[in-house]
């Protein structure tokens, strides 16, 4: 999975060393993921080899993966989007409402509405962050509560039930193509597009520049405001897509849908090597991080570890990832200094 990013494109030593660092990082997470799957499968072969087990392995993290990709893009610009869980909740409920209030509405329109609402909510986040010059942590913490509040006021004690959603739509949540769940295929397409954009397009590279040093990026003439807003819009839109898919997969939407998802998404990005201080990391890492996070969650009860301990394990993972980040950053810094000294 990491091959696309890690193939050194430029011939110079600098790019190659960066490539190696990235490679080490994402490969490490991928190896951890594989180890978890192997351990769980050894203790219970159903984890991988039953048809449900294999499907769940791919399917369960797919939604988080979509959200984590958006989150990674925002974090790369040295911001953070805490409101994604609330955005997902709102769009998931909107999805159900549309199917109830407009009988026969084509699912594609519902998707468009979900993405549109998500993007709009993301735009609000982005505009507040970019224009008000208030840290994204504060702004999106505020919108986390505001969006959730709107959701609770709108939903009340109501709930979307499986029978409210057309079967053709719910099949999206469980359908398979060649043994691979549709949701997973969709999530991987999102991932590949985002990865390609961040790696190959000028505006994508500018996100890294902004995250590395916003002031320098501004002085250099990059359109920081516009890029940051765009990053938030993408994150919102992806949370919106995830909301629609949430409805399709779980069939039940209450006002608490997506509660706490933002922390999982940030956790996935950080575990996957996206530095919380911005400018470093790939969406591949975030995606593998999402798989690792949720696969561990699913594996622990099967291995026989009490589910009360699961949260602690996730915490250890996140702290471990940050420590690893720090070690790698220090090592890279040293290496760069060495290279500079070697040159003349």
């Amino acid at each position, binding site marked *: 999975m990491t091959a696309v990013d890690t193939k050194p494109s430029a011939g110079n030593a600098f790019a190659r060393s960066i490539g190696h660092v990235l490679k080490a990082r994402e490969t490490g997470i991928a190896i951890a993921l594989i180890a978890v799957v192997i351990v769980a499968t050894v203790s219970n072969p159903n984890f991988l080899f039953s048809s449900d087990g294999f499907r769940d392995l791919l399917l369960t993290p797919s939604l988080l993966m979509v959200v984590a990709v958006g989150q990674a893009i925002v974090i790369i610009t040295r911001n953070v989007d805490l409101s994604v869980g609330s955005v997902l909740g709102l769009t998931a409920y909107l999805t159900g409402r549309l199917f109830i209030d407009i009988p026969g509405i084509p699912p594609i329109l519902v998707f468009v509405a979900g993405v549109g609402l998500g993007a709009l909510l993301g735009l609000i986040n982005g505009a507040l962050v970019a224009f008000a010059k208030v840290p994204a942590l504060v702004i999106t913490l505020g919108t986390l509560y505001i969006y959730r509040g709107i959701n609770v006021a709108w939903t009340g004690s109501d709930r979307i039930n499986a029978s409210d959603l057309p079967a053709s739509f719910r099949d999206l949540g469980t359908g398979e193509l060649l043994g691979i769940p549709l949701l997973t295929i969709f999530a991987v397409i999102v991932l590949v597009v985002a990865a390609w954009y961040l790696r190959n397009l000028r505006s994508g590279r500018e996100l890294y520049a902004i995250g590395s040093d916003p002031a320098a990026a501004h002085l250099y003439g990059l359109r920081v405001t516009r890029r940051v807003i765009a990053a938030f819009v993408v994150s919102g839109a992806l949370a919106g897509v995830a909301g629609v898919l949430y409805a399709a997969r779980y069939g039940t939407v209450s006002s608490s849908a997506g509660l706490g998802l933002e922390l999982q998404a940030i956790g996935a990005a950080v575990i996957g090597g996206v530095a919380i201080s911005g400018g470093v990391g790939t969406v591949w890492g975030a995606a593998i991080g999402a798989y690792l996070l949720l696969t561990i969650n699913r594996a622990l009860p*099967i291995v026989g570890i009490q589910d009360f301990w699961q949260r602690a394990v996730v915490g250890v993972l996140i702290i471990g990832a940050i420590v690893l980040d720090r070690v790698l950053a220090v090592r890279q810094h040293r290496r760069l200094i060495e290279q500079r000294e070697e040159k003349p």
Partner: protein
Amino acid sequence: MFTLKRKRFGVGLAAVAATAALVLTGCASDGDTSDGGSSDGGSGDTSDVSITMLPKNLGNPYFDTSTGGAEEAVSEMGGTFEEVGPSEASPTSQVQYIQTAAQQGVGGLIVSANDPEAICDALDEARSVGVKVVTFDSDTNPECRDLFINQATAEGIAQVQVDLITEQIGDEGQIAILSASANATNQNAWIEMMEAELEANHPDVELVEVAYGDDDDQTSFDKTAALLQTYPELKGIVSPTTVGIAAAARYLQTSEFQGEVSLTGLGTPNQMREYVEDGTVTAFALWNPADLGYLAAYATAALVTGEITGAEGDTFDAGTLGSYEVGADATVLLGDPYVFDADNIGDFDF
């Protein structure tokens, strides 16, 4: 979810309350001139009893169902019936409707309280002009009402779930429980009783695990998956929470275990319709809000006509539901939870 939490208001009422209610109703019926039906005290003539129903909020399918039941009861008795209520279930939103009902001089008021405390003053005022106050579904403080119609007891809920699951799996094999959060008071009380009942009367049924889905769709869903993978011999899952049972049903519906692993618990018909119709779930339980409203209306009429005063041991007739007796703390218990299955689920919309 919401329907289950209400239950706790019904328990733990002070014995003092029953006495207080008794004394108060006694006074009230003496001075009651606002309503013709009650003047012939105790004769049971209900033909001009006027009853107002005040649910937590309007447009809520659960309360639409209970209002339907009450309306049916009143039409059988031959009184007048009106439903009023706020659009939002906020603590004080019911006050104005209580005041209006008192001014209109209705005979009885049936309330599902949004707050056990906030509407007490208004209810006291209404009772001081002779309105009989009956709470259902969700109680006020016991001194604020004449009677509470309790939908179910913890014992009844535990019993019906054990009965359903043991019947569905043939009274032997492994079962698991998918609960709400690990510290959910109601669920823990029920689980304890279910464990005791399983041990006492179902020796061949083994409860292998109590998993906690935190009343979250996603967590409950994933916990169901983990249960099914961890215990390949599992024959049944009991989920005593409406969120849990719907999530577990959704997982089962799409898994290889559909139809092989039984699922039951507490759920609402709208939530479970899909899964009952396709055979994922055979039967589940909850109380019937229509019966609850029906019983509340009969109880109110009995109070208004003076047939009962709300004292422990009073009995009254509740139409097709039969005869009921007032229990301790001026509480009337609806009965055993109602079992929903493919045959009757079509009759309900809540």
